[in-house]
């Protein structure tokens, strides 16, 4: 998340598992998410999501509900409360109901999976208890995995034989709470257009259940970042779709991304890579005024993004010196050439 990078290891990725899962489920437009736990779990997460979405100029109110567990349910079991919540949600006729288990329901051992049957609409269970060692990322990944299963259940197994290379690309695991989610999307779209490919399903970003159901029609998946590689593997297993395991990061990284995507799609990479190399040079030319400025390296060797930052500094002719001006580093590292351009704009503001 790059809203407010903190000078420490604290990040939203280490937060509540529910928040991670909700970052996915609340982006399914016609869904309702039930948090099977005390009201506070819902309230806290709702507020956080709502505030973040507003910050990203998104006025949608997340559709989140609580099964409202109290001490009574903790002692006697919360299964009935969950059933009631599912029935209430089903009355709204959503395309899908997500049920998130919480720390307390996994502690008392509610048979949540046993209850999440079909309620007129598909009900998808997402494990959400963070005390089992999970965090934001786990919840995010759990949601994508559960949703993959739901799609598989509704579409059935893929037809045998190799998939047609149709140029349709699914984006897997976009960071919906990230400030730059749409800009990153636009950059991917631009890079894919160099290959005559286009985005098919955004899994998941403001998607409907029906749209998500067409995911198996795509012939390539692009995963947001390597921490979700297992989701890529899983989708490959379920639907036979190959994947590229990260959005492009860094200048060389972006060229490699084009190369890999081309290879996976069975297209020649030479021309599009050359085109992008030229665009990158053009971009750097726009920042020629930065050359020779004294800066200090904002990252430690070995930290994520270090290599890519050095590459950009080097290409822009910045001089790394002790006592140089500290540069802001966006976290996570910006996507593609456009992301680097945005970063350089930021640096220019600091340096001029």
């Amino acid at each position, binding site marked *: 998340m790059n809203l407010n990078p903190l000078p420490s290891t604290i990040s939203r990725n280490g937060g509540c598992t529910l928040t991670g899962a909700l970052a996915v489920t609340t982006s399914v437009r016609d869904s309702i998410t039930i948090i099977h736990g005390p009201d506070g779990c819902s309230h806290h997460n709702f507020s956080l999501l709502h505030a973040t979405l507003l910050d990203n100029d998104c006025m949608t109110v997340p559709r989140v509900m609580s099964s409202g567990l109290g001490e009574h349910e*903790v*002692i006697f079991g919360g299964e009935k409360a969950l059933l009631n919540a599912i029935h209430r949600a089903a009355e709204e006729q959503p395309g899908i109901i997500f049920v998130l288990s919480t720390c307390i329901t996994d502690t008392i051992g509610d048979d949540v999976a046993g209850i999440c049957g079909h309620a007129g609409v598909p009900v998808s269970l997402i494990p959400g208890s963070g005390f089992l060692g999970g965090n934001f990322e786990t919840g995010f990944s759990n949601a994508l995995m559960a949703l993959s299963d739901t799609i598989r259940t509704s579409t059935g197994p893929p037809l045998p034989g190799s998939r047609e290379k149709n140029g349709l690309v699914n984006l897997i695991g976009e960071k919906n709470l990230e400030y730059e989610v749409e800009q990153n999307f636009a950059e991917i779209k631009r890079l894919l257009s160099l290959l005559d490919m286009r985005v098919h399903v955004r899994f998941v970003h403001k998607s409907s259940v029906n749209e998500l159901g067409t995911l198996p029609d795509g012939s390539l998946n692009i995963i947001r970042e390597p921490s979700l590689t297992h989701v890529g593997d899983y989708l490959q297993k379920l639907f036979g779709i190959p994947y590229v395991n990260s959005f492009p990061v860094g200048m060389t990284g972006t060229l490699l991304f084009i190369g890999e995507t081309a290879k996976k799609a069975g297209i020649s990479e030479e021309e599009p890579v050359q085109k992008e190399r030229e665009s990158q040079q053009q971009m750097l030319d726009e920042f020629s005024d930065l050359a020779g400025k004294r800066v200090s390296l904002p990252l430690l060797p070995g930290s994520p993004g270090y290599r890519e930052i050095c590459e950009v500094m080097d290409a822009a002719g910045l001089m790394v010196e002790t006592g140089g001006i500290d540069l802001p580093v966006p976290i996570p590292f910006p996507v593609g050439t456009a992301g680097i351009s945005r970063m350089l704009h930021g640096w220019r503001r600091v340096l001029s």
Partner: protein
Amino acid sequence: MKQIALYGKGGIGKSTTSANLSAALAEKGLDILQIGCDPKRDSTRMLMQGRFIPTVMDFVRTGGETEIHLEDIMFTGYRGVRCVEAGGPEPGVGCAGRGIIATFQILERLGALKGDIIVYDVLGDVVCGGFAMPMREGYAQEVYLVTSGELMSLYAANNICKAIKRLSVRAKNQCRLAGVICNAKNMEREEELVREFSKRINSRLIRFIPRDRIVQLSELHKKTVIEYAPESPQAEVYRCLADDVSSNERFTIPTPIEIDELESLAFDHI
């Protein structure tokens, strides 16, 4: 006011011992409250002529705890012993431990925790924090371990020692081990073994209760031995236990032993 708790392996005879102890204490003219802290809810049955009394959790389940009155959950049994059962969820759902905690809060609120002696009869295995509740917050300050000479029973008793020891380091905790009650299974050298075990865990054998058919007979008649066969030698043993308990002032922090030591101890007493 004395507050004592009986802990021990399931089926070892905690409830039988508790009920007879309460009956014998009541005979001495003391005001006794016995609280069954086990979802099985059968702790006080023999004091209530075989009746399963409604439990605190029954009321919470059906009525909502705001409406609870003392008379809904506290029943007077043999010789005025006041009986309470915590109860709990159906087997296999929810959290029985939290049920015990909630029960204590309700009893506290209703002002039920008073009398000369409160006897807490607790589930055999202290499987979670809830079942350690009677040992916490200053409720039971004197814990008695009920065990036979069987290895698994000693093992359970030893585990409870671990819980007491752990709690005892907390500044405000007053829970101590008050002694070991041997509810005999008629094994060879059983008394000797349990006496030695008690010594090893830094405690002592308070009373050896021999196995006697009269206990089963009394239970079949839905009474305590004290009530059904007041003249029997067994009733006398329970009366002695009541004397032991009411006059006991030797409380220790236990020193649980390792499983190897426990096993070799059992070996030595074959």
